């Protein structure tokens, strides 16, 4: 890691914390965001010359607060807020950063400020795509072009989405608050869903050519770590971190040397990241210990990921346990994709006839390439080669990305060659 990387890491790590407190004290997330962006630019300019300050967070906080006050002064329409900010504010001259740092309020409330920021970004009055965009910009400190690239939308579209989301927070007065105990479970679920969505987008990007966008995966894990750190008593927050770590452990084995996708069954398990598996398993144990015997959906998924990650091979996987876990997951989330994965496990446990029967009971996946590919696999194993080719043909047509199309096409060629 070179000096610039270190600097960027520090800014990414401290940025959301500075932003969280600044947004509360000035009462406007949009202004706080702009102020932090300006402070970040100042830091990128100053720190290479002066070195990273002893307390980079406090340095950023002081500079960002000044930038915020400048911004508020410039916007005369915000007179009321300006008064509030000055009441809290600072009269320090620009060269008195050290004194200003010493005069800052203690950081005991930082945890609450971070939670406020997270729950505001993932407020249910914002669309899910706005929640994701805000989380990546505000909590993960990704730049707009990077977020736009990650979700394959034009930069202007992503910028507009963020502007609109911030304007709604201010105009509709989405509160900068931690939800009450009664609201917390539902609101936490929304936050976890956002992080999960970022991770799954990293895992199976729609369109494009990359099998996995490692940067989004890293951002999702970073966010999950933050949530686990802030809410150590919430088993589902810990489970989500466990799930993401266990899944990310397989990322490097998901492509071959030519960049083609490799399915779980065919992966070189020596390429799996053992450290990530160990860490994920440890978080899962922690989650289990705190869940009081009731496993939430992320915990069950983490158990599934762990069952795969600790199996010596596809054949030696504990399929009975996996089918059982999918049954449990299916009982709390009626989701056809869960049923599909369960059917794949049934094939391995009970054979292709049972797997085929399970697949045929699933309704709602007629347009899923995965469903057609799973049907094809069972049909082929049962010797119905021409039907299998038909299903694979459907799968190729429906595959959402080029890499998946390539994988399915090569399977189709194999099956057709068996037809002779």
């Amino acid at each position, binding site marked *: 890691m070179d000096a610039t990387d270190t600097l960027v890491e520090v800014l990414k790590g401290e940025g959301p914390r500075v932003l969280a407190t600044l947004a509360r004290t000035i009462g406007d997330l949009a202004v706080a965001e702009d102020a932090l962006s300006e402070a970040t630019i100042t830091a990128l300019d100053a720190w290479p010359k002066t070195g990273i300050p002893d307390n980079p967070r406090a340095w950023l906080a002081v500079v960002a607060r000044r930038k915020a006050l400048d911004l508020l002064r410039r916007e005369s329409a915000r007179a009321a807020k300006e008064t509030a900010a000055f009441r809290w504010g600072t009269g320090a001259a620009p060269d008195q950063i050290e004194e200003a740092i010493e005069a800052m309020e203690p950081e005991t409330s930082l945890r609450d400020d971070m939670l406020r920021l997270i729950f505001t970004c993932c*407020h249910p*009055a914002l669309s899910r795509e706005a929640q994701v965009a805000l989380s990546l910009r505000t909590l993960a400190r990704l730049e707009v072009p990077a977020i736009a690239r990650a979700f394959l939308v034009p930069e202007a579209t992503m910028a507009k989405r963020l502007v609109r989301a911030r304007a709604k927070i201010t*105009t*509709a*007065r*989405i*509160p900068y*608050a931690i939800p009450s105990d009664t609201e917390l479970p539902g609101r936490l679920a929304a936050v976890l869903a956002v992080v999960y969505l970022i991770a799954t987008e990293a895992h199976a990007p729609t369109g494009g050519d990359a099998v996995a966008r490692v940067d989004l995966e890293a951002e999702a894990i970073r966010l999950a770590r933050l949530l686990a750190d802030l809410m150590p008593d919430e088993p589902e927050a810990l489970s989500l971190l466990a799930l993401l770590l266990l899944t990310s452990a397989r990322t490097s084995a998901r492509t071959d040397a030519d960049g083609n996708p490799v399915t779980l069954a065919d992966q070189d398990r020596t390429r799996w990241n053992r450290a990530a598996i160990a860490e994920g398993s440890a978080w899962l144990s922690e989650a289990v210990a705190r869940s009081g015997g009731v496993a939430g959906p992320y915990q069950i998924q983490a158990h599934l990921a762990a069952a795969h990650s600790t199996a010596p091979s596809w054949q030696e996987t504990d399929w009975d346990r996996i089918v059982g876990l999918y049954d449990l997951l299916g009982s709390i989330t009626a989701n056809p994709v869960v049923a599909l994965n369960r059917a794949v496990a049934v094939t391995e446990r009970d054979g292709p006839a049972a797997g085929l029967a399970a697949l045929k009971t699933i309704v709602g996946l007629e347009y899923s390439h995965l469903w057609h590919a799973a049907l094809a696999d069972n049909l082929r194993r049962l010797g119905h080669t021409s039907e299998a080719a038909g299903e694979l043909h459907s799968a190729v047509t429906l595959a959402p990305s080029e890499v998946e199309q390539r994988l399915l096409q090569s399977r189709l060629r194999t099956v057709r060659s068996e037809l002779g």
Partner: protein
Amino acid sequence: MALYVALCYYDRDQYWDSPPEMEFSPEYMEFARRATEAGVMRGGEALHPVTMSTTITVSGGKGGDVLLVDGPYAEAKEVLGGYFLLEAADLDEAIAWAAQIPAAWRGKIELRPIAPVHA
């Protein structure tokens, strides 16, 4: 504090002076009473059906010809049947109140912040 209008939408016109709407009147009155007592309700009215609407356009700018159309501006499946003006500290508080308006389960409520108009 901020002002919000809770627009009450229904899947058909509401005839407030005839059944079945009349039987819901007590529920609306009860909500209005509680919201007023809490200092949240700042106004609100029920609206006659859209067939009673007149749509007005002044053509060619201010002072131009007044053109009238018998009926609503936009033909839509959903109709605005009334509104409540609510004052709340923030969106969460406004949502908590809006969710108690019978329209929330008899139809849908669109909650919009009121824009302050500067002189």
